[in-house]
């Protein structure tokens, strides 16, 4: 028999962490060709960190994204960063990059004031890669040309330093209260499953989610996190484990052919909507949307299995064996107490 069920789960997810303080730093400098290098020590794991930081830097510098190079090459030589984890990078590094860009703009203003023979306070950025005398568009210089002049004519650097730190927050020993994060993103997921009561296999039919992630710097990348995270959550819920027959490590998977993950055949219908309530302290109002995407699908799927079968499972992954044992236990319980009100005991 195949039983269908629907489950729901929600998540509030912290952006960043706070153990001994949570700093990120960024350095920006102009090259001789007028492009800007943003040096970081927080790497891109594939989520698009370099892309969103490039967008933020371009916005803050007032230049085209094509003129920004984000360099995350080397944590030995780059500015200090705690790293890319805890859904912190866009928030922390983005703030540091904006601070660094403000210093760069000051350096550009110094040189532009001399080049244009204008008062510093009369200059403005047009956001399109130019600096001009306010109200006199004819008196305008390309930012790339200002950077070049700084280096070849004035012997100056065009550079900026930026830092952002979430300070350490001690834990109140009486209450446990502390300030653990900078902001929180939210999501709610509804999962539909079909459970085969003969085999114990679970097919996930759909994962539908609503996300509130602050301002989206790059909606395509946000969607990529949500869709990929839904698959990861499903994989954690039903497939992945390094110790399927714990405690004997001899049975642990040794390679990709033994480590179970769902593939292209198993993908459910995945849908999402994204709401934007900007945070007060992220760059342009962002919150973190990374790790959280693999969270709510897991309890949503487990709740859907409960809804479908009445079997409450409290360990992961939910293997066919766990479901069959749960169904057996339910049948035995029904035999022991046949007179009980079945509507009240169903699923206990």
């Amino acid at each position, binding site marked *: 028999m195949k039983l269908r069920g629907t489950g729901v789960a929600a998540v509030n997810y912290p952006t960043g962490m706070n153990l001994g303080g949570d700093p990120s730093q960024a350095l920006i400098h102009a090259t001789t060709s007028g492009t800007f290098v943003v040096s970081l020590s927080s790497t891109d794991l*594939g989520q698009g960190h370099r892309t969103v930081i490039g967008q933020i830097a371009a916005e803050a510098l007032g230049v085209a994204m094509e003129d920004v190079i984000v360099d995350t090459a080397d944590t030995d030589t780059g500015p200090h960063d705690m790293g890319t984890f805890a859904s912190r990078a866009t928030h922390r590094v983005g703030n540091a990059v904006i601070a660094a860009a403000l210093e760069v703009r000051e350096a550009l203003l110094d040189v532009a004031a001399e080049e244009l023979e204008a008062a510093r306070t009369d200059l403005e950025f047009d956001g399109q890669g130019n600096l001009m005398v306010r109200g006199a568009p004819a008196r305008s210089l390309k930012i790339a040309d200002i950077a070049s002049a700084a280096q070849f004519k004035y012997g100056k650097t065009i550079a900026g330093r930026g830092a952002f730190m979430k300070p350490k927050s001690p834990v109140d020993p009486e209450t446990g209260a502390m300030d653990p994060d900078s902001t929180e993103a939210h999501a709610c997921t509804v999962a539909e499953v079909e459970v085969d009561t003969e085999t114990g296999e679970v097919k996930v039919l759909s994962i539908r989610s609503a996300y509130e992630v602050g301002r989206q710097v790059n909606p395509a*990348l946000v*969607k*990529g996190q949500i869709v*990929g995270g839904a698959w990861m959550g499903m994989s954690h819920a039903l497939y992945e484990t390094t110790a399927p027959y714990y405690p004997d490590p001899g049975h642990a998977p040794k390679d*990709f*052919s033994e480590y179970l993950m769902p593939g*292209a055949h198993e*993908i459910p219908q*995945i849908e999402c909507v994204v709401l934007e309530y900007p945070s007060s302290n992220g760059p342009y109002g962002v919150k973190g949307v990374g790790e959280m995407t693999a969270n709510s699908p897991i309890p949503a799927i487990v709740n859907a299995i409960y809804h479908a079968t009445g079997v409450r499972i409290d360990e992961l992954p939910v293997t066919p064996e766990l479901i069959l044992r749960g169904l057996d236990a339910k049948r035995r319980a029904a035999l022991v107490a046949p007179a009980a009100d079945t509507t009240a005991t169903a699923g206990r």
Partner: protein
Amino acid sequence: MASTIVTFELAGREVEVMVKPMTTLQAVLRYQLGFTSVKEGCRQGGCGSCTVLVDGEPMMSCLLPVEDVAGRRVTTLETITPDEGVHPIQQAFIDHTAFQCGYCTPGMIMISKALLDHDPHPTREAIVDALAGNLCRCTGYEPIVAAVEGAAQATAGKGAPR
């Protein structure tokens, strides 16, 4: 055992490599010839990241002794990428955000090319079947399936370029 010389066709040219017996095509392509799109994910045929075409057929190059491709035509992501711009399947992967870390992408594109060369109008089921041996850890597969569908539409009737 003594090294031997193996010749095969790559990017329209005959290449000649000297190899120890049982050296894999993957190792030759990546480490001797510098074709770094050919990834070494698991070295046991479990992940598909090393997929290349041999005479148009998809093969996991990590399981293939290079002697077996002597005299045959090998196609990698490098050889289908035009000098200017990108291949229609690459464009479809970009349009559908079908990669994140990018490690599986060369293998995914090569298996997709093999599918579209054989079946220019694949059903969704055929696409999913074709991708079954290739692992992706980031995207959840759906964007990749959508990219292959998009590439099929983009190249429909014209045939995917070699």
